[in-house]
């Protein structure tokens, strides 16, 4: 298969159920007077959240430095893993955007994050484990770790109803499946290799609870001659279903939606600096969210994405994106069309 590179598509995606959608820029404010999350007004120009410079950094500023993955609980609170801050931040809605209202401080870098059954699941990039925390306490407490190692836990998803936790091991090229209740290892899905069902350089993961499927984004072969980037779909039982190829280059976090009648995949393309809305059946790009930051301004303007790494589809169709190098999250109103 020839290597596919992205092509920017100007078409906007508007959720069929929403009209007049307007992008809302985000959020997280500079939190100079914390503990946890005193909040400034959301700045439309989105100044960097953490001051960079030669001066000695503040001890524990709960500000986003390198947001990677994002999850939500039933109440709509967000949990964002931050690679550089070595923390998982809890964000709650405020008058303008979100406030940081809690933090799980770690001694190592987190990657994948998920919320299920009142617990926070966090992938540890250094120790190669997935640790489970009780975040409801004033001070989060580690409960246990999933029972099998995951060398590079880049993303996590759960099926609460069936009691399953899916963890993507980026380095091993497989999805490990665990029980939700006690973290027992059940089985693995896929593995490295050259065949179409193999995972070569996977990065992101989500699950389709209704269809009992696991969707994995994969950079594909990086040697220039192999399979291009794709979203690979497996059944819960590990059977390979299909590969969604499209006009994208470095696919990262993803989400799914059936709400508009046409099942779509929302896919963060880190290289292209957009979130792609893909027809799940054909891989055709139906629209995009956000625009690529081109470095013309000192800081990305609202809606400009600089290394987007994950996508969360929230209640009401709101799409929330971790805008990594912009050091913030970006929220697109239902449908996400930008003015």
């Amino acid at each position: 298969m020839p290597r596919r590179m992205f092509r920017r598509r100007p078409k906007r995606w508007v959720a069929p159920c929403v009209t007049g959608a307007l992008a809302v820029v985000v959020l997280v404010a500079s939190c100079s007077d914390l503990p946890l999350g005193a909040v400034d007004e959301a700045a439309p120009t989105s100044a960097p959240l953490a001051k960079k410079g030669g001066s000695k950094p503040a001890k524990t500023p709960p500000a986003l430095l390198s947001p990677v993955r994002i999850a939500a609980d039933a109440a709509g609170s967000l949990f964002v893993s931050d690679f550089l801050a070595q923390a998982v931040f809890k964000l709650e809605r405020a008058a303008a955007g979100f406030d940081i209202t809690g933090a799980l401080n770690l001694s190592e870098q987190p990657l994948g994050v998920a919320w299920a059954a009142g617990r926070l699941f966090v992938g540890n990039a250094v120790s190669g484990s997935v640790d489970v925390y009780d975040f409801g306490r004033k001070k989060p407490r580690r409960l246990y770790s999933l029972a099998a190692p995951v060398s590079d836990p880049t993303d996590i998803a759960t099926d609460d109803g069936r009691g399953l936790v899916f963890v993507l091991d980026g380095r091993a090229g497989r999805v490990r499946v665990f029980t939700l209740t006690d973290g027992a290892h059940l089985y693995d899905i896929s593995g490295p290799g050259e065949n179409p069902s193999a995972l070569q350089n996977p990065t992101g993961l989500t699950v389709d609870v209704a269809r009992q499927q696991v969707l994995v984004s994969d950079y594909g072969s990086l040697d220039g001659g192999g399979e291009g980037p794709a979203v690979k779909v497996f059944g819960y039982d590990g059977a390979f279903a299909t590969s969604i190829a499209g006009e994208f280059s470095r696919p990262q976090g993803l989400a799914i939606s059936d709400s508009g009648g046409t099942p779509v995949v929302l896919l963060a393309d880190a290289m292209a600096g957009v979130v792609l809305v893909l027809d799940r059946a054909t891989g055709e790009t139906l629209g995009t969210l956000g625009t690529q930051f081109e470095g013309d301004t000192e800081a990305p303007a609202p809606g400009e994405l600089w290394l987007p790494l994950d996508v969360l589809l929230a209640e009401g169709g709101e799409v929330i994106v971790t805008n990594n190098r912009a050091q913030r999250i970006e929220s697109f109103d239902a449908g996400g069309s930008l003015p």
Partner: protein
Amino acid sequence: MTWYRMKWVPAIVAVGAAFLLGVGAVTDSLQSRTASSVALNPNHDCAYCHNLHGGSSMQLLANPVVEALCLTCHGPSGTSVLKVANHVYDNSTCTDCHVSHSNVRNWLGGTNLKLVRDSVIGQEGNSRPVVFESRGTNEAEPTLHSFCDGDEDGNGVWDGVCDTCHSDVGRHTYTESNKHGHQQGATCTRCHEHVLQFKTE
């Protein structure tokens, strides 16, 4: 084959030859423009960073911000095991210290490791030579020409890759007048990890 089909053969051959010659000329041109005559970094395919159709600028980059090119693989959730983050100082970016295509020769005639530039712009704004041929003692490599060797070769130039800036800043100040003795010859990144913006935890 009938005559009216055969008459196209010379034209096709001519066009094909011209195409091949043209490709060769372009390839030669590209090679001559790279920082070194040696092959490009063998771990990187051109298409990692360049988009032949639709790339931005003269370099046909897949993303106009070079840093994004690097971090899609070397960033937190990238596929490379070599994960990095920008230096904590100001708006430092990858190309302040690295070249993208190949290891380059330094001013002493050796070859720098890890795609480190042969010169960087120091704090004072001047270009300063860099010699980086060893990763230092923690990697069981020589102290000479490592991150910061305290002018071990005695040529009067503090050309360790860290020295170039840290000769003029408040921390680990390596200058002739202020002979900071902090871990000279050691592997700076052992404590100041690249993945953590060269900060210590």
